[in-house]
């Protein structure tokens, strides 16, 4: 059996609206498992509860009902909070607001320093992490002199220096240009494929969900669809009803099918489309 790193059972989270005292249910009973080494993409429109879900994964938010278990540790237990945060690293949307120190290497060292690791070992972890995100030559640079994609890679380096089991990315590419987006996705993919790091990638770019092993579509605080990218994106109509886009190629495939040209479902990339059309 595959080992489950993350187990979420009937998770409910409520926000109290400060203005008129209305209670908003952001998560209305989510059940989700993530296997070790899996690349899971969570997509959904704004307000679908996907960021709230992310914050539950490392105990930044605690369940009002239900439970979140990380490698057997319950997030509701106060004494396990730091162990959970070490295991589940989190990269946020705004690259500027998550870098702490005035140089790249100092920032990468921030997490390990918090864990109380020996200085010599921190040095090794920092050099290693910066190498893995391809920023070794930038180690003395000030963060504000980096591009958006580079900043996000520094943030990722700062997380993997803590030796986590899971990398949670909460819309890490939302504020980046296309080049930066590609950089970040390549880094994340490599960490997942080559080192077996479990990745939970929250995004509203459908093109990024194509990289995943499994896609979860959130809507109104619930999981609306779940499956491999091919399964999900061949259900074009359903996705559109959830106010989401499908990747361009998948949409083209849907249109062709409507016109009577039936290609195999689940075509996601340009290359696959070309191959299918030439047959």
């Amino acid at each position, binding site marked *: 059996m595959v080992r489950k790193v993350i187990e979420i059972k009937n998770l409910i989270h409520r926000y109290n609206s400060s203005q008129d005292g209305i209670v908003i249910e952001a998560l209305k009973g989510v059940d989700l498992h993530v296997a070790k080494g899996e690349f899971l993409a969570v997509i959904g429109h704004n307000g679908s509860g996907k960021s709230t879900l992310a914050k539950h994964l*490392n105990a*930044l938010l605690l369940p009002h009902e239900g439970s979140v278990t990380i490698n057997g540790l319950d997030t509701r237990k106060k004494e396990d909070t*730091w162990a959970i*945060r*070490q295991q589940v*690293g*989190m990269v*946020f949307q*705004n690259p*500027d*607001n*998550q*870098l*702490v*120190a*005035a*140089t790249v*290497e*100092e920032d990468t*060292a*921030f*997490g*390990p*320093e*918090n*864990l*109380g*690791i*020996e*200085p010599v070992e*921190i*040095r090794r972890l*920092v050099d290693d992490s910066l190498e893995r995100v391809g920023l070794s030559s930038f180690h003395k640079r*000030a*963060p*504000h002199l980096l591009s958006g994609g580079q900043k996000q890679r520094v943030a990722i380096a*700062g*997380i993997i220096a*803590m030796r986590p089991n899971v990398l949670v990315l909460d819309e890490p590419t939302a504020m980046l240009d296309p080049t930066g987006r590609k950089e970040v996705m390549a880094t994340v993919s490599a960490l997942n494929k080559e080192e077996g790091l479990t990745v939970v990638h929250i995004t509203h770019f459908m093109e990024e969900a194509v990289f995943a092993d499994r896609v979860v579509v959130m809507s109104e605080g619930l999981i609306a669809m779940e499956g491999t990218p091919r399964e999900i994106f061949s259900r074009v109509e359903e996705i559109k009803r959830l106010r989401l886009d499908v990747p361009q190629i998948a949409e083209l495939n849907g249109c062709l099918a409507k016109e009577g040209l039936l290609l195999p479902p689940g075509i996601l990339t340009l290359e696959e489309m070309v191959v299918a059309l030439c047959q």
Partner: protein
Amino acid sequence: MLKDITIGQYVPGISFIHRLDPRTKIVAVFLYMAALFASGDSTGYLVVTVFTISMVFLSKVPWLMIIKGIRPLWIILVLTMGLHLFLTQGDIIWQMGFVKITQQGLRQGVFMTLRLVYLVTITSLLTLTTTPIALTDGIESVLKALFVPVAHELAMMMTIALRFIPTLIEETEKIMKAQMARGADFDSGGIVSRAKSLIPLLVPLFLSSFRRADELAMAMEARCYRGGENRTRMKQLQMTGLDYMAFIIVFVLLIVCIIIRFWM
């Protein structure tokens, strides 16, 4: 325009003073201040002057940088000089109407002004030869050694400030341009209307800073930050032979100044 603001004023170099541990430099500045305040006569001042000038030479920092540091103080310097010169009682050496200059006043005025100039020279030498990051580390460990309870928090605040000043400057420029595009005028009018025109700049800047602070706090917590307890540092400050030598030199200066003051 705003981009030209530099944080700190570090002048890169590899001189003896540049290579000293930041802790050494901070403690040395305090010992130097003690020596400076201990000296009260011309012999003492001669020693301190020779020391100060040789330190600036040793650091290879351009004199212009030092003078730049002193220049903003000119009002205070003139005031100090003037007050001592004209208001000290004693043997009159020059008089015109009720304005008179005494020998003691001249002496006091020159000494006091020199004291201020040297104080600024040596403290700017500290910031000119130490990177802001090293300075923060130095301050943290000096405060810790003095058992100041908030040493870590203070250092963390300085680190974050260093990290965010450039980001906030960038943001200020962006907001300024956005407001100018909407017809805001930051450069004309009297002092009151200029101050008023800053409101549409400051309000969004404050708002966004609070939002940043909030997000940063969350990111820090997500990275297991829980204050200074059990926290280690990657960079360990290391004292070398140079540092011990520097300590000896400054101690000798202090002792010489004390001897001159009390036994000569």
